[in-house]
């Protein structure tokens, strides 16, 4: 599942000649082509200048039980040509976080999710955070090799687009919208190939369960 962020009246980040909603849609199409060449089935949450709500995007993703969700973004800052992967970071419940031992806010154990279970829509991603982090690390490893200057590790951030997704979910942000259109277009294929390699490695490593 590829989710080009923003769209419609929500332009996202603004560069001199580019805006995020257009950059990520073009990039999503390149990534889809690269993934399909590797044999993946790819669904886009939007394929035009529309702006589905966060809930609509999560709803599209949550229909699929064996998917991964990659939300594509372009940043306002950061060294041009670098790419970062993020997984959802939830705050620890206050009752379970004594100050001296609160180092694992995403500490939901990686255990099988029951086939039928009620989950709060507001934090539906919580049971998948460990798997999402593994996917984000796999992606960041590929990005560090393919895009010089990219950090070696993924980061946990409360990204709104990931909160209600019930499959392993990450946000991928390319730096930045201040790059020239040619520079941004050139990132599409290598980004797609890097994502394809990471998703394949993630699946071979056990996937989301």
């Amino acid at each position, binding site marked *: 599942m590829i989710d080009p962020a923003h769209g419609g009246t929500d332009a996202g980040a603004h560069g001199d000649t580019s805006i995020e909603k257009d950059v990520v849609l073009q990039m999503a199409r390149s990534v889809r082509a690269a993934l399909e060449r590797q044999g993946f089935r790819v669904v886009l949450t939007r394929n035009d200048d529309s702006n589905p709500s966060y809930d609509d995007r999560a709803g599209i993703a949550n229909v699929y039980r064996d998917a991964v969700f990659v939300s594509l973004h372009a940043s306002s800052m950061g060294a041009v040509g670098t790419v970062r992967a993020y997984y959802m970071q939830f705050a620890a419940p206050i009752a379970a976080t004594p100050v001296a031992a609160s180092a694992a806010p995403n500490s939901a154990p990686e255990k099988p999710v029951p086939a039928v279970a009620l989950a709060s829509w*507001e934090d539906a991603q919580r049971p998948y955070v460990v798997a999402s982090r593994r996917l984000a690390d796999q992606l960041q490893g590929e990005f560090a090799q393919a895009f010089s200057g990219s950090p070696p590790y993924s980061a946990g*951030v409360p990204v709104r687009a990931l909160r209600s997704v019930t499959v392993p979910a990450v946000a991928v942000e390319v730096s930045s919208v201040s790059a020239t259109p040619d520079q941004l277009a050139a990132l599409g294929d290598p980004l797609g190939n890097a994502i394809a390699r990471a998703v394949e490695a993630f699946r071979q490593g056990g996937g989301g369960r």
Partner: protein
Amino acid sequence: MPRGVKIALGLLVLGLIVGLISFRGIQRRVKRLAESQTADEKARHEVLAQPITTASDVTQTARIFWAAGSDRIAPVEVQLPLSANPVERCRQLLHELTANPPTSGQRTIPADTTVLGFYILPDGTAIADFSDTLSSETPSGILSEEMVVNSIARTLESNVAGLRRLKILIHGQEVDTLAGNVDLTGFFDLNSAPVAAPQTTAQAASAAKPTH
């Protein structure tokens, strides 16, 4: 020309003149109102932007987290008069973070941002209420929004004991995201992550050069 048409045209012209006069009056009133709001906002900002001093202030070393390059933050040690009262201390720290970055390249919080309110609940939850500027002037993007939130959270946790989590409000309201990406409906953990070694102000200024 029939008499009825002449009367209609006359009324139309009269209506047009009255409309133009009213329109100019409305324009003037809107302009006066806007100027008055700007002046009020400026006065409020000047009051809120004053350094906060309390009777228990003692000058000490504080670690303020500003930008160190285009994609990370790092602590800078500065000498600040800080209150013994944790709420006032937090306000002083956030004022320093917002108003006095060593260089413009190290700024993480938009320049005109003010702290409208600050509270600490008995369970260690800190609630920081910022002016709209924090949301409207922060560049959209996960990286940029993360740097804003982290600079606030790391600055507070490094200098105020007992804080466990942070809630960020914008103009007294819970908002969905900071600038389109980072979720502000939840809390941010404090005192849970290791921090980098502090830099001196000079080191930090050199580290703040853009990397692209």
